[in-house]
């Protein structure tokens, strides 16, 4: 479906989520095993650690039609690789401010800590993010037009 078309029809925000394998992804699985329900707008990419998320991925997601991005890792101090989440924190903060400076609402990029035991928190994270991004409206700034 063309990106442009999707935007004009009833606007359902498209969120791309980068989840760290040990905590956030396991938290998402737990939300599943607990049969919680949350909006289907989020598409998950599993990475070994939130420290693997390159700011370029966030930019690529917006280019390719995402309206919001979630990066979720382990709580500070619980990272499976010691401090991957602390590195993600600096990268996401600097990126959020750069995007903010050129006019992308900072709430479109969300960094959160979800442990493997927080299925409910994961579901809430998705709900609040979808609602927030829906309020911001579709990402109009620089999505790639269909070739």
């Amino acid at each position: 479906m063309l990106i442009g078309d999707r935007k004009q029809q009833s606007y359902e925000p498209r969120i791309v989520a980068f989840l760290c394998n040990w905590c956030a992804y396991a938290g998402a699985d737990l939300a599943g095993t607990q049969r919680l329900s949350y909006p289907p707008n989020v598409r998950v990419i599993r990475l070994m650690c939130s420290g693997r998320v390159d700011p370029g991925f966030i930019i690529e997601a917006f280019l390719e039609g995402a309206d919001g991005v979630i990066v979720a890792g382990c709580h500070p101090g619980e990272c499976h690789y010691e401090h991957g989440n602390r590195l993600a924190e600096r990268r996401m903060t600097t990126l959020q401010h750069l995007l903010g400076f050129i006019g992308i609402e900072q709430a479109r990029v969300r960094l959160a800590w979800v442990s493997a035991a927080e299925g409910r928190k994961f579901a809430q994270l998705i709900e609040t993010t979808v609602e927030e991004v829906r309020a911001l409206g579709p990402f109009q700034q620089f999505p790639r037009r269909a070739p």
Partner: protein
Amino acid sequence: MSLPQVLDRHLRDLFGSGRVNSVLGAIPTRGPLGMAQLARTPEEVERFTLSPLACPNLLVHLTSKEARLDPTRFPLAVLARGCETRMLNQIFSEHGLRRDQVYVVGLAHCPGAIDPRRLSAQLPVLRGFPEATIEGEEVVIREESGELARLARTELVLERCRHCQNHEPLIDDYRFDLVEEADWIEPVSVDEDPGVEAIDAMIPIERWAYWRSQLERCIRCHACRDACPLCYCENCILERHTPCWVKRSVNLPENTAYQLLRVMHLVGRCTACGECERACPVDLPLGLMMRKMENLVREYYGHRSGLDPSGEHLLSIFDPRDTTATARLEQ
């Protein structure tokens, strides 16, 4: 217009003593910009000038692919002002070059470098390469027929000189005072940055409207990337095919991705020297983004790039007290 005697002899001695194989400096050109030139022999040194009009981008020629293809130019002496030594520190801390490859001729008491665009905007009638000196808070332009103009320093100097924190070189192997100690008055550096503050004051829609009109004009000629002394990758991801981060088509989305990725690769490294903005043939205000990120990184993490030749990279380390992003979101 050539170099002062003391400096001229010192540079020639460097050749004689075999301490350097080449000297990188600026020579006057027809227009008021000056051109980087590499002196390979002592004789060529006399073509150099210290005029504040001739302050082209020298450091890019230390880390460029050209430099890597011509190792015989090292060890190389470079005439470097305070801000340029800060960039050198950053290059050394990233092992772009080894400290022993560069003989740093520190130009101390730097009164500032003149921005050719601002000069020609103020003095359109200017032709050729006049003699210019900076005295205190004034720039004096002289022709053979005497004084052509006397203009305010802050109006003419480069953006980085208006916020200059390093009038003295941070590192040097030899120090030369541009202004005699006696009549050296520390120029006024302003903190506020009207350009950045103006955008900070805007709401997101206005900000995007502004940046949209700018980024649409980008012609993707890579001048900003090629002018940056810190952009010395073998195969820059902005040009790479597999994987392709930025597509070749020149339109708003790809131009925005190009600039965002370029800026994110310089966060914590960029010393806000403004060469990218100066090089841009369509005058995109790239300096705004670089200075915004440099302020942010100093304010949030107390990080100033280029102060310590063996400093840590901002995004390679962390501080337990970093809680800016998540704390804001967690409340």
